């Protein structure tokens, strides 16, 4: 089994309802995502998952030099940011891609699939 990071990308800061067009759509996406999470647990793929607050609430800390530098905002200036993620276990990439497709449909966002280092 390999662990994969499934991260959801979208213009999270877009409007009143984030990337969603309306309150109803947002609620529907939350509901579908909740159901997807449950099914991940039932099928034994679940490791961890979480939704993130909007990117403007982020802070970057750079401790690579003598003085620690703290900057307001996300690391990359971008219109699109990671809005949430799953960590799943799957037997191979085909299975991980199939899970990502389900997750993408549920949360209504494109999902990036990336393997974790195995050792």
């Amino acid at each position, binding site marked *: 089994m390999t662990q994969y990071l499934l991260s959801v990308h979208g213009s999270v800061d877009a409007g009143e309802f984030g990337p969603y067009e309306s309150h109803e759509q947002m609620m529907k996406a939350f509901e579908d995502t909740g159901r997807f999470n449950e099914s991940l647990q039932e099928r034994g793929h679940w490791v961890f998952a979480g939704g993130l607050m909007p990117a403007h609430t982020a802070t970057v800390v750079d401790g690579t030099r003598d003085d620690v530098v703290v900057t307001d905002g996300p690391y990359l200036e971008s219109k699109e940011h990671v809005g949430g993620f799953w960590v799943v276990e799957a037997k191979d990439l085909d299975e991980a891609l199939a899970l990502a497709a389900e997750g993408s449909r549920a949360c209504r966002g494109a999902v990036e699939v*990336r*393997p974790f280092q195995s050792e």
Partner: protein
Amino acid sequence: MTDEEQPTDGEAVTARIERLHREEFGRIVAALARRFGDLGLAEEVTQDSFAEAVRRWPADGVPPHPPGWLATTARNRALDRVRRESTRDARHQEAHVLHGLPGDGARGSYGGSYGGTDDSALTSIPDERLRLLFTCCHPALAPATRVALTLRLLGGLTVPEIAAAFLVEERAMAQRITRAKQKIAAARIPYRVPSDAELPDRLGGVLATLYLVFNEGYLPRRGDEAVRTDLCAEAIRLTRVLRGLMPDEPEVMGLLALMLLTEARRSARVVDGRLVPLAEQDRSRWDADLVAEGHALVRECLRRHRAGLGHPGHHQLLAAVNAVHTDAPTAAETDWSQLRALYDQLYAVTPTPVVALNRALVVAELEGAGAGLGLVEGLAGTLDGYQPFHVARADLLRRLGRSDESREAYARAVAMTDNDAERDFLRARSEEA
């Protein structure tokens, strides 16, 4: 040459090794990849095994069963490497995981595991090339990467050869291939033939990759050669292998027929470095054997459809189009209404503007250049960035005597190609407008 003959002549040995390289490289890589679960290792030891043959055979003579010798040498090197590595246990375990999945989704006939260490198993290596082909053409890899990997691991072409064929810097090509192998290992792209449910989609990716290799050889986008025969030959060779491995897939048959019927016209299409359009080709220069083989495959496809085994797919229809062209003794005798019917079917399967453009050119033959141009103009919005659109438009305008507009269209088409032979051809045509 039989296995018993021992060529003493160095050149004969070299030629023998070259032929074995083409025929056996992919097979050995595929078998070892399955056994050790490590594509990079499989590739390196297979390469080493051929290098060893180059060193030893001219002096020692060719062994009695050369493919078995090459496979055994490669396998022994792989075993040595695995034993030597300090991460031996981890690697063994990893190999085990990949190796231990023969059943999952694989079609029964291809799922046979490659067990045993005795040499009898090695001399009759199960053909694992189908798995390797599906791995190299996985949808998680970019199309250009699929092409490079397929040529390297199945075709046995060297990195410099692939880089040269695609006019890419050698270092960039090496990096592309290394990264792809890394991704296959790290992301665990499975080493298996897709299940029946996934097969139509996934097979499409494999066929598209092989056709990309062929087209890059047939219609090079850049350079001073009108055709790069080595790529065409390699694409046909690999498609023949695929046909042997999946003899009942009509789209594989269709793709092979399409390539053969296109390749058959090569020596008539480029004469003294000049491009000759289909209508003006000397048809006696077409390769009659390739035409016959292509026609036989198209007939076999037709028989299956008449027997009610599904509808013809994209490649079969394109092959049928080429069969109609190659069936006509002269350009004037081309069965254009048959072609229109085929393009109608093709548009139903693949409703793309490119298919619509080709259909418009058939309409131009049946109903006149004006009718064709009307349809072509309707595609201007979507095909403005597509060079053959401007070639088609220029040609129809020329036939209608609208010289100024035609020359303008030819100028755009010339500006959009980097192939010297095609540029010369279009310039000459423009002057006739």
